[in-house]
């Protein structure tokens, strides 16, 4: 029973992280390999806000959300904007480089010590007995709930609002969208903003759940197989992808060794690339586009 709970919690964490990968990919065909670091920085934003500005949970979370969103805009306008129209591979390498730079900055600013933002927020992460032999932490529940809220929000936004429609259009055919008078940079920046926001949200929850140190970016790296399993250009695909990868990881911890769980997502990724490279829900044409 505990295994199922673990899989669901981990899968929803992956869902939160991966929606950032998909949003950026759909908008600009770039796979952002610095997403793990952006998520970590989200956690550090919460920590800084909670010790430096407001110790009250809700405002400090809101302020950190805002900071994450801003980080996304800044990264887009000062770095990735120059990569539009360049080869995809070069853009991906730039994100790798950005990730390494951010990792260095994190250690430089916040040191590599383990921090617990929860202490400063006056909250506790208690465990709840939900069924026979299965426990879940408060922030595990928060992960699952925020995933549901975020995905519902994104779905409604893309389906029913004017901005959502435009974002879809820009992702689908940038040239036509530009000819209709949409400012492409505005929409790309918006995708980056939302992506970093959702990644940062995952980072904040993870930081509350199990503490904060620079090695947290590994979770982000382990999450990118999820998007490839689900299909790089499919937001819906993230959910089954997250379950497959989370299951592989949790089962590897249980039956092989904790260290094997570190590579289980990549093994799944390789298998998927060999069998069905465009992923469960991706479009096959996408393979030819890159």
């Amino acid at each position, binding site marked *: 029973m505990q295994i199922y709970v673990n899989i669901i919690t981990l899968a929803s964490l992956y869902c939160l992280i991966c929606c950032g990968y998909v949003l950026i990919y759909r908008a600009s065909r770039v796979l952002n390999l610095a997403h793990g670091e952006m998520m970590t920085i989200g956690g550090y934003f919460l920590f800084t806000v909670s010790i430096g500005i407001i110790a009250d949970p809700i405002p400090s979370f809101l302020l950190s959300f805002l900071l994450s969103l801003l980080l996304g805009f800044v990264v887009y306008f000062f770095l990735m904007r120059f990569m539009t129209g360049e080869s995809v591979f070069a853009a991906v390498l730039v994100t790798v480089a950005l990730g390494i730079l951010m990792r260095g900055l994190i250690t430089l600013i916040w040191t590599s010590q383990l921090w617990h933002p929860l202490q400063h927020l006056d909250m506790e992460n208690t465990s709840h007995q939900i069924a026979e032999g299965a426990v879940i932490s408060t922030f595990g529940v928060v992960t699952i709930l925020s995933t549901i809220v975020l995905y519902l929000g994104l779905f409604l936004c893309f389906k029913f609002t004017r901005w959502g429609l435009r974002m879809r259009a820009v992702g689908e055919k940038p040239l036509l969208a530009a000819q209709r008078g949409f400012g492409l940079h505005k929409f790309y920046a918006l995708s980056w903003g939302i992506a970093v926001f959702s990644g940062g949200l995952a980072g904040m929850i993870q930081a509350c759940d199990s503490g904060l140190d620079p090695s947290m970016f590994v979770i982000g790296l382990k999450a990118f197989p999820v998007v490839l399993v689900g299909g790089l250009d499919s937001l819906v695909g993230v959910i089954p992808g997250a379950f497959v990868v989370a299951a592989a990881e949790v089962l590897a911890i249980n039956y092989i060794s904790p260290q094997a769980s570190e590579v289980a997502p*990549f*093994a799944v990724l390789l298998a998927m690339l*060999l069998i069905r490279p465009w992923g469960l829900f991706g479009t096959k044409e996408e393979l030819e586009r890159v």
Partner: protein
Amino acid sequence: MAFASGYFKTSYAKDLSIVETRSRCTCLLLLILGLAVFPFFASPFFLDLATQVFLALIGAVALMLLTGYAGQISLGHAGLIAAGAFTTAILFKELKAPLFVTLPASGLVGGLLGIIFGLPSLRLKGLYLALSTLALHFIVVYLGAEYESTRGYATGVVIDPPSLGPLIIQDPRLWYFLLLIIDILVVIFAINLVRSRTGRAWMAIRDRDVAAEALGIKVSAYKLSAFVLSSVLTSIAGCLFAYFRGFVSVEAFSLLMTIEYIAMIIIGGLGSILGTVFGTIFVVLLPYIIDILVDALNVPARLTTYMFAKICQLRVGHDHFFGSGARRSCGHLAACQGLFYALAF
């Protein structure tokens, strides 16, 4: 120096020759002479720099063959170097194997991994291929870490200097000459290989795979051969890396290493062996050059260092030294490489 002007080749012997004019031949001989006497005049620091360049060049040529000629993108280069280094470390620790066992064994492991790395390339291109090699990088590094932790070498494996017969290679000059000879062999091999049937097939695949197939080139076989050959060379470089450093640990083989190698071949210009040499020299020496500049100008701040790196890279990257075709992206790639050096200090 007289260059060959135009395409005036009147005999097959001339067509086959690597060095085209007499003055070029003289320059080449002078270069070799210079390299041969260099270690007797250079300070230990410069000797070490030269050896580092030689060591990196083997891996860079291997990556150039794969990416620059066969057109297959790989993000698993550090993983392959790790594979060679760990094969050496494991054989040395478990069996006390000497150099003439570990070197071929590393090559063999590299070749096997090359087939595995190459298999996805039969179905995938571009970004997807890069991601599959990235996944393999993590798996190889994981296996190395697993060995380290299960055998109790938590921080890394220490390796004794290798011996060739009665000769123990420990002296920096000996390393210099050994690597110099290996480098010359590798470069000659690469230059000849890309002029051969295999090399021409690779270039055809790089330029347009469908057209290559229509010309009767077995695309999958040649793609795999590119991966295998490049991986064998890379793993041998990994083996030498292990002996040269005397220490193998998974921390050394990060994605940063992969990016450095990619930067070497892109700054040099894809599709040029000579460019690889210059790219390697540039990338290996850049951190030291920046260091010297920072000392000379007395700017302590990290950010300034980073700006320097970025500007240097951008300027040089935009009109890259050698290579075919204008690839503007290389300027940006070089810029991203500049970002790394922010961390080197």
